[in-house]
């Protein structure tokens, strides 16, 4: 399948008027006829757009997984959607990194627990003491 938007030089979000203009200006008569068949009827365009989304998603996936030139995509299967391989990180490695990071954080939290408990009881104790003193002084003044 071809990416007609790319070939006509318009964005996939273009409105009908822009599309019609682009179609009318297209110098290739065969492409013009195809584009007319797809874009003149809203139903056709919608269904075409769905396939286009799936295909461009797969194209991105192939680029990220290093499958741009896979055996099934040679010839003219979907050449418009074969992107150059990008250097994105592997999602799996990223996940493993994040999990290990989370584990380290958790362990540190566990290790600090004893100290934190002490600090918290101290703060609560002083808070109660100050509160009691304040109320006592209030009643005495009265």
């Amino acid at each position, binding site marked *: 399948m071809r990416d007609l938007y790319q070939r006509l030089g318009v964005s996939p979000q273009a409105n009908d008027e822009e599309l019609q203009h682009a179609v009318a200006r297209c110098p290739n008569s065969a492409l013009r*006829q195809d584009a007319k068949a797809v874009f003149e009827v809203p139903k*056709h365009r919608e269904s075409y757009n769905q396939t286009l989304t799936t295909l461009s998603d797969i194209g991105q996936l192939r680029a990220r997984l290093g499958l741009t030139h896979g*055996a099934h995509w040679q010839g003219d299967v979907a050449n418009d959607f074969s992107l150059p391989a990008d250097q994105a990180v592997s999602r*799996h490695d990223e996940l493993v990194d994040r999990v290990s990071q989370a584990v380290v954080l958790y362990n540190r939290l566990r290790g600090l627990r004893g100290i934190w408990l002490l600090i918290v009881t101290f703060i609560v104790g002083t808070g109660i003491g100050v509160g009691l003193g304040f109320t006592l002084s209030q009643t005495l003044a009265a």
Partner: protein
Amino acid sequence: MSIARFSPFELLLLKSRSQVDTAKLLLLAWVLVHRQHVSEGQRRRRLAQVSVHFRHGHDLAPIIHIAQQQDLKAIQLAAEVLRKECSKEHSLGVMHQAITVATDSGELSLANHYILRFLADLLNVAPLTLNTLFQELTGSPLAAPEDPSRDAYWRIHDADYYAQKAREAETAQQQAREAQEKAERQERERQQEEAERAHAKAQAEAERERNRQQEQTRRQEQRERKKRQQQESQEGAKQRNSYQRASSPPPPDRTTRALAVLGLMPGASQVEVRKAYRRMAQLHHPDRFYTESEHQIALASARFQRIKSAYDYLMHTYR
């Protein structure tokens, strides 16, 4: 130190009893989501049926939800997990499941054509192996996917639209024919009238001729008289009358000029412009003059450039 939140699929993967099975489940759900003419409930049941032997151990609804959103990150993660952990035999099994889920004695949808090919690439299944597997499972060879970016596809899949268009064209043609007949009839009537009028005119003409001769003689006399008067009254005086300039036609704007280059009148339609451009371009293309002298070729290419720029300009303005 803050960590980005784990996405729903990452959480599922971490909680799952077998990461490969969860990854497989997501990819199968992705295939299922792109099957057509199947209800939501059927999809869910089919996925449950496929995943009986999976050691996923969680609810299927979130997986289906992720697949429906077509979450690229999740699908990429699943693909990576699958690629990392699948052996050769195992990957054929996955391919097998994907094909059955995608077809189930129904037709392979367009999106699934591509998804299956993607999965085959991912699992290192050669095109030939995929074809054989597909033929064994469905009884028909894996055809090349249809191309909805072509006119021919819609002629097959939306024949109604084309039939309607043909009908409309026919009625338009008929109307045009009727209009033409009417015009011809009017033309004939007009000609008849004109003939009658011409007859009457011829009679009137003779009368007028006589009148004109009388008029002319009278006017000449008047003019001579006037001349004499003028000569008498303005003999040395300068004439201060400024000449009234004849009103020239408005300067042709760029569109008109461009149309003139293509040999068209102002107000020509886009179709006419395109036709004229084709004809002129063929006529003046420099390649036609390659047997002639350099000078001829240079002239032709200059003409061709002029025609082309006129056409480009017109195509820009016709919005």
